[in-house]
Each structure stands twice: as C-alpha cells, then as structure tokens.
C-alpha cells in the first residue's frame, strides 16, 4: 500500500514538472513578449545606402547664324553626360544631363527677332511650354542686340535662357571645339537654373553632417525653413499709438493680389494657410535713439535682435496644427518716435526699412507723417507687400545668390517666382525629403532593434512599408527626370515615415534593470518550483539507489 502511495507521489511530481515545463514556460513566454509586427528590414537596410541620380533634360536650340551648315549636318542630336559625386560612405550622388541639339524653327526665329530679351522670352513661351525640371537654351549670334553689352546669358521668367554664342562659333573652327566651348557655358547656365552640387549637398544636411566651407552656406541653410507639409503665414499690423494714428490696411486685397499667386505656384511644395491681425498698443522692446544728423529716430542693427521677443508673446498662433509659422509684422511707430529708420552696421539707413529673422519671419517699419493728429492713413500695400514677398521668398528657400558674371536674370514674373526658381526649389526639396525620409526610416528600424520592449503595431508596419514604397518610387522618378512626380512621391514618403516614427504607441515599456526583474519573478516562481525540484531530486536519488540494489542483487 505504501509503495503504491509513493508511486502515485512520484507520478504526481513528474506530472506537475511536465506541465510546468511543457505548458507553463511557453505560456509565460508568449504572454510576456511584446507584439512586434513584421518590418521590411532588408529593404530598409538597402535604403541606408542612398544612391541618387538626378536627370535633367536640356535642349540646346541653335538660331540662324550660330552654326554653319557643315556643322549642322555633322552634329550628334543627343548627348548624355554623367557626373558622379560620392558624398560619404553611404551616399552617392550622380547627375545625368541629357542634351538634345536642334536648330530653331521659323516661328522661334521670329520670336528671337523681338527688340528686347524680355519680349523674346514672352513670345518663346507662347510657342511651347517646357516640362517641369527641363531647361531650354537658345544660342543667339554673337552680334545680337537682344543682350546688352557684356552680358552673355539672359535667364528668362520661365525655363528658357538666351546664350550669346562665343567666338569659337565662327567659321573655320572644328565641331569639337565648338561643342566643348558650348558645353562649359551650358554647364554654367544649368548651375544657375537647375541645381549645383553645393545646393544638393546642402539639401542632404539631414543625412550628412556637413562641414560648411563657406559661412554664407551656413547662413543660407539656417535661414530657410526645413521642408514641411504645410506652413502658416500670419500678417500682423502693430499700432502702438491708436490715438494718433488711425490705420487702415486692405490686407485681403493685398494678399489676394500679391501673395496668393506665389502661394498657388508653390502649391506642389506645401500647403499654406494665411491669416492676419491688428495689434494695438504693441510696442517694440527697444528704445530707438534720436539721430540729429538724420533728424529721425534710428534702430541699429545690433539692437534689432532684442526687438522680436517682447512682441512674440502677443502674436499667437493657431493651436490646431504643428506647422511652422512665418510671421510678418508691419510696425507703424508712435508719434513720439516718428520717423523711425533702421540703420545697418555702417550707420546707413536701409532702403527697405525692414529686417528678418531666420526661420521666424520679417518686420517692416512703416513711417507715416501727418501734421494734424489723429492721422488717417491708408497703408500703401504695394510697397509693403514688395518687402514681405522678398522676405517670404527667402524664408521658403528660394535662394537669391548672386548670379555669376555675365548673367542677366530677368524679372521674376507675375507670381513673384520664376519657373526655373520653382524648379530649383523642387530639386532641393525632393532631395531633402528623400534624405529625411530615409534617415527617419533607418533610424526607426535601428531604434526598434535596439530597444527590445517597444510594441510594434500593425499600423506602424503599414506606414513603414508605405514609406519604403514611396521612397523607391521617388528615387526612380528622380532618375527618370520627372521632377513633379518625384516631389509628390517624396512628400508621401515623408508623411508616412513621420507618421510611423512619431506614432504615440511607440513608447517603450518601462525599463527594468535585471535586479528588479529577479525581484518580481522570484517570489512568484520560487515557492512553486522548490517542492517540485526537491521531489524530482528525491526521485532521482531513489532511482539511483534502486539501480545499485539491483546491481548488488545481480552480483
């Protein structure tokens, strides 16, 4: 009877041990693991190696008198040039310029016979519209009167440029020299109208920690806002002295006439929301000094830095979105401090009477003069918007670097933005978006790998896959030369990657150091495991003893 009891005891201990090991341990493992949806890790690792190829379509049109008949017959209609620039170990940039050569049609010749370059530009545009990202260069004879003396290139409002043929275009020179000379000139034009290597590397600043060789490069990069899906623009009129000045500004009409065309043209780049306000009794935080030589009050450039902060507290912004805000302030000085001029470091007054702060906005001082108080003023919005538009262009990244010598840049057109300036912006924005999205995705993958107890939900995996797909499409479109589509895909990639990275569910569970983990598990599992372990040991000891008895019995 006792033997049966012990036997049952042994069976019980064994059964419990089996259940604990076979069922309990896997159950505990399964229930304490974090849910991690599958991520396309190999594709993400491939993205870490970024190889961007930018393709530009260039069309070179020879007008009458620039190319001899012999050369016209021998010339190769297409020509591709590939430039490779490795940036660092993980990034390689290559530029492909596909050039097509042709002679001008009769209608184009008529257009080129206009008296001035601006009119030529206008009539050429009426003939054909170049697609986004391409450049058309018209080579005009050296003796042409379209370009003034000393100017070799005229850059128009759209995507065309007029290039004065150089000396080698005369008869007697071989085709190779002609084309070689032309090539250098075309390269210069493309650096201005499309992109230069420094522009593209500046756009990659998220990926590549750049060593700014020029201080101006650093200032440029800090001035413009980073690529964002939307921006908020606020126009504010500051009236510190409402008793003396009754101000009226027709902001709606001004915005509609001058700002809205620019923003509509920039619609592929980002969404813009506009609002305006009038602030009364808002003062600048700095006291201007009276300058007897000018008989006016002046604000020196050094004190301008302290002007913005006291005002900013009163500006306010829409609480709903997290988009960057651009503030444009129009300040009308109070009667006691009128007129007020801004002076630069050399103590000269500034013509625009305005200044800007990088990634914040601009402030313009508008002087009113009136002998009889209160003065009723209708603010001249054309002058004001001229300044604000220039500042807005800078803030949004439309670079206004000085063109190389011999270049004449035409006026920017009704929208305040030339087509080729838009193309430049699109190139740098697409590259910036692609670089930012790849960095986000690769660092997200790295992060999730490093921190083991972050839960990865299905929607995050979806966003990541969508981001990877959009990135591949964007890179492909850049290679094919479709700038508009490339920007669109890069924007989608940014959207998905940001949503994935900043998803609220990606907060890792509390960090438990090892001693805390033991402190939690030991009181739960030790009391249960100790009897099982002891009885297993006892069974093992008994079995060994029985085997020894049996061996003894045999002998």
């Amino acid at each position, binding site marked *: 009877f006792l033997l049966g009891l012990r036997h049952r005891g042994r069976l019980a201990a064994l059964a419990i041990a089996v259940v604990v090991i076979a069922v309990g341990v896997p159950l505990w493992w399964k229930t304490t693991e974090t849910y991690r949806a599958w991520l396309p890790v190999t594709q993400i690792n491939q993205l870490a190696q970024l190889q961007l190829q930018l393709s530009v379509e260039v069309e070179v049109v020879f007008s009458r008198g620039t190319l001899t008949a012999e050369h016209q017959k021998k010339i190769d209609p297409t020509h591709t040039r590939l430039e490779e620039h490795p940036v660092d170990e993980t990034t390689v940039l290559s530029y492909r310029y596909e050039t097509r050569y042709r002679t001008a049609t009769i209608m184009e010749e008529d257009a080129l016979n206009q008296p001035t370059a601006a009119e030529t530009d206008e009539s050429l545009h009426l003939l054909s519209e170049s697609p986004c990202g391409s450049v058309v260069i018209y080579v005009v004879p050296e003796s042409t009167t379209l370009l003034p003396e000393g100017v070799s290139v005229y850059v128009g409002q759209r995507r065309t440029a007029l290039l004065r043929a150089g000396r080698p275009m005369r008869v007697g020179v071989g085709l190779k020299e002609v084309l070689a000379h032309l090539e250098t000139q075309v390269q210069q034009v493309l650096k201005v109208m499309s992109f230069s290597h420094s522009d593209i590397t500046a756009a990659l600043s998220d990926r590549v920690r750049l060593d700014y060789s020029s201080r101006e490069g650093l200032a440029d990069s*800090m001035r413009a806002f980073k690529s964002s899906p939307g921006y908020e623009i606020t126009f504010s009129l500051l009236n510190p002295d409402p008793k003396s000045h009754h101000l009226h500004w027709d902001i709606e009409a001004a915005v509609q006439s001058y700002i809205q065309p620019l923003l509509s043209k920039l619609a592929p780049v980002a969404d813009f929301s506009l609002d305006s306000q009038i602030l009364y009794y808002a003062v600048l935080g700095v006291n201007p000094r009276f300058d007897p030589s000018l008989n006016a009050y002046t604000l020196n450039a050094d004190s301008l*830095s*302290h002007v913005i902060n006291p005002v900013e507290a009163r500006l306010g912004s829409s609480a709903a979105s997290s988009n960057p805000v651009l503030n444009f302030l129009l300040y009308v000085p109070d009667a006691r401090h009128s007129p007020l001029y801004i002076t630069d470091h050399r103590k000269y007054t500034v013509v625009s009477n305005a*200044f*800007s702060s*990088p990634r914040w906005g601009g402030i313009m001082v508008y002087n009113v003069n009136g002998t009889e108080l209160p003065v009723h003023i209708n603010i001249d919005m054309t002058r004001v918007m001229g300044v604000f*538009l*220039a500042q807005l262009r800078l803030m949004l990244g439309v670079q206004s670097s000085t063109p190389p010598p011999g270049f004449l840049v035409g006026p920017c057109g009704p929208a305040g933005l030339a087509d080729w300036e838009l193309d430049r912006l699109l190139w740098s924005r697409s590259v910036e978006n692609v670089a930012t999205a790849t960095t986000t995705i690769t660092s997200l993958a790295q992060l999730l790998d490093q921190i083991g107890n972050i839960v990865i939900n299905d929607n995050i995996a979806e966003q990541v896959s969508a981001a990877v797909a959009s990135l591949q499409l964007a890179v492909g479109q850049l290679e094919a030369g479709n700038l508009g589509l490339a920007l669109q895909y890069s924007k989608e990639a940014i959207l998905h990657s940001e949503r994935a*990275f900043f998803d609220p569910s990606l907060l890792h569970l509390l960090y438990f150091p090892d001693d805390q983990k033991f402190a939690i598990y030991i009181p739960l599992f030790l009391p249960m495991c100790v009897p099982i372990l002891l009885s297993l040991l006892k069974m093992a000891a008994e079995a060994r003893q029985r085997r020894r008895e049996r061996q003894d019995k045999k002998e």
Partner: protein
Amino acid sequence: MLQAKAGQFFSSGHTNNWAVLVCTSRFWFNYRHVANTLSVYRSVKRLGIPDSHIVLMLADDMACNHRNPKPATVFSHKNMELNVYGDDVEVDYRGYEVTVENFLRVLTGRLPPSTPRSKRLLSDDHSNILIYLTGHGGNGFLKFQDSEEISNVELADAFEQMWTKRRYNELLFIIDTCQGASMYERFYSPNLMALASSQVGEDSLSHQPDLAIGVHLMDRYTFYLLEFLEDIHPASTANMNDLFKVCPKSQCVSTPGHRTDLFLRDPGNVLITDFFGSVRKVEITMETINLTAPMVKVTSHIKCYREELTVLSSRTKG
C-alpha cells in the same frame, strides 16, 4: 557685411530656444520644488523665451493650495521678497498630467494628434533646449508624483531618440534633486551638457524655511542659481564656466557636478543666453520686389456684414 552677419550665425548654430521645466513632486511640503521650477521659468521668460517655446510641467498647485497663507503667490525667499508666480504663468501640464509617460512623450514628440501646440516641443535641428528637472530623486532615478519613477537609462534613451530625429542642436540638462549626478551618468548622445546639484551619495538640501508659510521655500542650488541668473540680461556675455561655479560646497553643502564631455563646443565659448535666453539672429532685408500690378478688388463678406449691421442699428434707433 554678409560675412559679419554670417559670423554671428557661425558661433552657436541655433536659431531658436526652447525650455522644458518640470517639477515632479506633489503635496504641500514639497512647496520648494514648485518654487524652484517657477524661478527658472521666470528667469527664462525674462531673458526672452516666449511662452509658446516653454513647456512648463508642475505636478501640484502651490499658489492656490488651501494651505497657502498668501494665496496666488509662490515665494522664493523668506521675508517674501520675490514672488516667482508673477502675473502671467502659463502651465502646460498641471497636476496629474505630469507623468513619466507625458514627459517622455513631450521629449520624443510622440504625442496624440489631438495635442494642442502649447503642449508640444516643436523644436528642430537648430533649436537649443534647456531641460530642468527637480523633485525627489535617488541613485539612478527620479520620482514622479510619489508613485512612479524615471530611470537614467530611459532618460538617456529619450535623448538619443531626440538626436536621431535631429530635434535639438544643443541641450542643457539641469537637475536639482538628491544624488542628481546619477541621472546624467548614462547619457551617450552628442551635444549634451549636464549640471546637477549633488553627487551620487549626497543629498541636495533646501535653503531656508519661512515661518509664516511654514515650509522650506527653495532648494539651495536653485536659490543660488536664481541669484546668478538675476544678474544676467539679454546682452550679457557670461559663459558656462561661470554657471559651473554657482553654489560651491560652502554654500550648497552638497557638491554640484557637471558633465561636458559630450558637448562639442568649449563651455567657455557657450553663452548663458544661448540656453536661458532667446537672442534672435537678424538679417537686414536688402532686396525688395517691385510690384507693378494693381490690387484686385476683393468683394469682402465683411462689407456685406457691416451693411447689415448698419441696417439693424438704424432700425433699432427708430
């Protein structure tokens, strides 16, 4: 002239400033922690950082606590010399909203989409951020609300996540708790500078009690920090080496510590106003656009509305 302006850009590389100020203790006897945070808030606002760029988290309300004999005030000095509560305090996270989770969410940016702008840290790659924590802490952790804690490893990981997403240019971390130096031991991201009020194994002590209010008003380290900051104005050229000298052992009883090995610039070149103030970079606008098109007439809804109003008012008059 562009060179001179670019020279100004060159020195620090930041275009905007942010501050995240957190008080993690609740209950009336932890009055001093709220006073600590509010005094740093006050200095930072005075030196120019606007409320829209400050995330202020206070775990309890001392000014309107029913045990406060002087309601709507929080004093930093006995004899009630300085009311750090002031006239315009904007608290972004109050009371029970101050949790480890919310703090980490603010730092990493992983907030729900419905969070308003004032509760977010919208910094970018050119932002300098000041982070100030105060409360009760221990070796490797900081206690939140007397019920949970944040460890130094989590904090270091949060900063690393900020770095990978380029959410800061440079970051200054100040902590005033017991054994505060343990909280910055585990940092590994670049461009971090840290100050603590005491070393591992030491306690940070409070300054002086006020007999009328009945509690200790401030901690020693922050008291002397406030005294130091009161002398700083927006154009001041004091640098970080001066900040490291604040509150020596003779005044603080504990030994304040600092960590600069992860910081790229030399602390002697870093101005106090790079983190505590908000000195804007400014450029004169040299170019303007000549607009020639006349303004379009906009049929404004407002005009119609005004007409309606005049019609209504004329009716009521008669």
